């Protein structure tokens, strides 16, 4: 079940991505950020646009 060759997507701490590449593992990094908190009014407008 555990792959012999690991291919890793790192999401969050960049430190962990760096350490994986230093260990010669094929990896990519996702710069994750929380969605900005919007005023209810703005959120409603965006929802309407989505619809």
């Amino acid at each position, binding site marked *: *079940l*555990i*792959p*012999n060759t*690991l*291919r*890793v*997507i*790192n*999401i*969050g*701490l*960049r*430190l*962990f*991505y760096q*350490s*994986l*590449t230093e*260990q010669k*593992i094929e*990896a*990519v*990094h*996702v*710069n*994750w950020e*929380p969605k*900005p*908190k919007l005023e209810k009014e703005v959120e409603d407008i965006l929802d309407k646009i989505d619809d």
Partner: protein
Amino acid sequence: MMQFSQQLKDEQGVVDAAIVMGTDLNKNTLKNMDLLTEDGISATENDTLISINCQDENSLNSAAQKAEQLLVSDSAKTKNEFNDLSSALDSFSNANIASLSIPGQFVKEMAMELIKKQLHLFVFSDHVPLEDEIYLKNLALENNVLFMGPEAGTTILNGTVFGFGNRVRKGSVGIIGASGTGIQESSTLIDLFGEGISHAIGVGGRDLRNDIGGMMTMKAMEIFENDPNTKAVLLVSKPVDNNIRNKIINKINNFSKKNYVLCLVGDNENREDSARIKFSKSIQTSVLKILKSLDDNVYKKANDAVRNQVNDSIKLAESLSKDLNDEQKFVRGFFAGGTLCYESKIILEQMIGKVYSNLSSDDEYSIKGNVSSKENTLIDFGEEEFTSARPHPIIDPLLRKNRILEDANDPNVGVIIIDIICGINAAKNTMAFHAETIKKAIQTAKEQGRKLSVFAYICGTEKDVSENELKLLTDSGAKLFTSNALMSFAAALVVNKSDENLIKKIRAEFLEGELI
């Protein structure tokens, strides 16, 4: 943000620094760190707060410039970095594992997508709601992948470390850990005694609770059962409920062809070993037992080494004990590893009585980590009061340093004990940093006319720690130990001369694994 804070702290002249979002929780933490200013108080959760405490104005100006660079610079971005998961999945085909270290409340949405794409997950994130963990672990089982976490500190797959871990040799022991530092200590001791590990699978601290039912522990057992490189399996956890323990034991007895050691750290019952399953109350004894199940010669060598270390520690404790004055009655312990703190608490309580701790479940002895120590006190610096807005103490040991120096001033303290976790993703120069702290602590006590002992358990292999780094620590006056249990045993002996029977009991249960 946390890494930016750390980089800022590494700047010349910076005493402490934090870059955080202006949430109430973060503002409260900054207040406790003495980093909350008038401007900071008025910040909202849509603001980024940069707070810096410097030795002088020049340092402050250059640190402020550095903070700006860190926040606006895009230069570190490489072709392997993406702003969202779908772009990463599109560009990086055949990914087979994801490492998640995002806030817990966002894990479910992200993890669902990854599990459905058949990726294994290593989940470092904390504060994942329990119901999310149950849902995600069930989903992982349906998709035949591992969900390693949440709050998994360590996993090692085919020699590759996820989270915090050590450069241990490959070998025939499989480790399943509901504790990150439990995996770290056991894997480094196995390495020290000449064996190695196949994989170490972190399952998260709650996996063996009744409500999770050991879902990933069972999955990991199946993996090791079918892995030709794994000859014996070590399971490390705090004590678990009876029905979960029975579930594991039944599974081993009915399905397993491999030998198991169940290390239930601090278990208060004596359990009888069988041919297939051995029990242990400490990480050190679990390692001896796993070696015994593999190779008698390796075991005998390891056991001789441990016996010599125990005898040397008793002599050392007797000699240090003579240096204490009548007021120096107490032990203080400041830990980066939660399980190590817990193990130490169990040993000290048997030898010197009740201990105040932020891990204590006894109301009378439960204290918050950030209030002053009382009598015998052990603090886990990985608990929420320290990590809500700062990196884990393995990455950022500053708060612990301050506490060591604070307690070095206390005339009632005889011994301070600490764990120093080395290896992959640990703080850079952690040995030098701690050597300087220990030297200062011993000097502080000396200036006040006392001889203070500082004990350090070094969690690392010879590939993690250089001879020079070890020398820095011994030169600082620290006494070094190869296991947490041994350090705790010796500390108790320094402040309180235990009777022979008690020493014999601790040797058997926590240090050597069998009656001597």
